[in-house]
């Protein structure tokens, strides 16, 4: 049961990561690379968006871990 629960939670995070990455790739390829003329500017804009995607996910997962740590510590303190 524990195994299934963890797989659903982390598998869900990974699936969400995948969907959002595909969305960013499509946005960069279909919008950024089409509407920005200069190659260097395209690279900077594209890389910035990928970096933003990475940073957003990283801080979201970090916040989730901190929330779990705090709630586990609080429940241990109550017991």
């Amino acid at each position, binding site marked *: 049961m*524990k*195994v299934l*629960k*963890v*797989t659903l*939670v*982390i*598998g869900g*995070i*990974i*699936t969400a*990561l*995948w969907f959002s*990455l*595909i969305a960013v*790739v*499509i946005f960069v*390829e*279909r919008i950024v*690379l089409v509407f920005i003329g200069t*190659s*260097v500017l395209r*690279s900077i804009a*594209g*890389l910035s968006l990928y970096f933003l995607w990475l940073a957003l996910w*990283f801080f979201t*997962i*970090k916040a*989730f*871990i901190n929330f*779990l*740590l705090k709630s*586990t*510590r609080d429940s*241990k303190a109550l017991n």
Partner: protein
Amino acid sequence: MINYIYLLIFVLPAIFTGIFTPYFIKLVRKKGITRPDAHKPGNPQVAYLGGVPLFLGATVGMLVAAVFFSEYWIELLVHYVTILIIFVIGLIDDLKVLKGEIKTILTVLAILPIGVGALLFRDKIVLGRPWVPIIGRLRLTIAYWLLLPFAIAGPANVVNMLDIFNGIMPSTTLLIFTALLVSSTIHGSETGIILALIWIGVLVGYIYYNMYPAQIFNGDSGSLMVGTAIGSIALLSHMEFIVLVALFPHLLNGMLILASFRGFREHREVKERPTTVLSDGRLKANLSPSAPTSLTRLILLVGGDMREYEIVLTYILIEFVASLLAVITGGFS
């Protein structure tokens, strides 16, 4: 006829690794080359240097492939030299212990054979333009060349970072190689099919000896090399994006660890662990605010205290999800 040859490049490395590994375990145990298993009560000693049977098994596979698929000898040679470089670095680290930063910098050098191969054999090794879903071939130019040095070092190090419990490395990478095989078949990339089949064969022959309770540890020579093989196949068959998806659990773990340590650390340098072992053998998340964060810590925070084999099973299922997404990625590319 061709199907039997595909079978051969899978079966022969599997048989070799399956037969050679137990002999190698006996040999290294006799020589006293063992390491304690930190996640088991009493910390039993386990044979080390699993990279050696893995490397020799891959060598058998490469030789068989070079005989039957001689038109791909350049791709096979480039792949072989790449894994050889990392195998040697890993072996030195297993025997002498390199500093975390030095080991990581050295793994970046493994891109050289692929870079040189791409310069010398422009018709055979074509880098760039990875396949992605819906888009087709990605139009990365500057960004691709900026990220290229990490295409080998990245997979090598994240696979190495997740080689923490019995059986995790061979089981998760076996799923990744299977995803690569399916994606290569969909795209008709024969280089990808040949190399993925060799590594699936090697890992099928080896996995039994590393699964819980492990008879041999992979060592850095094993985990860095298998990660390198994944990166090398990705580059040689334009599967960079597919591998990126398949490596999501490894990358997530690697990012959490790197952020915790603010850089690369050799695991022997780490003072506080993300998990602790209870007296009954179960593992629990370390609740100390100063403890480093890892994917295992997240697993234990979500699921509560777990036994080692339960954590390994969880990792296999998570990697199954990632590999399935990688195959879907490959299917829609």
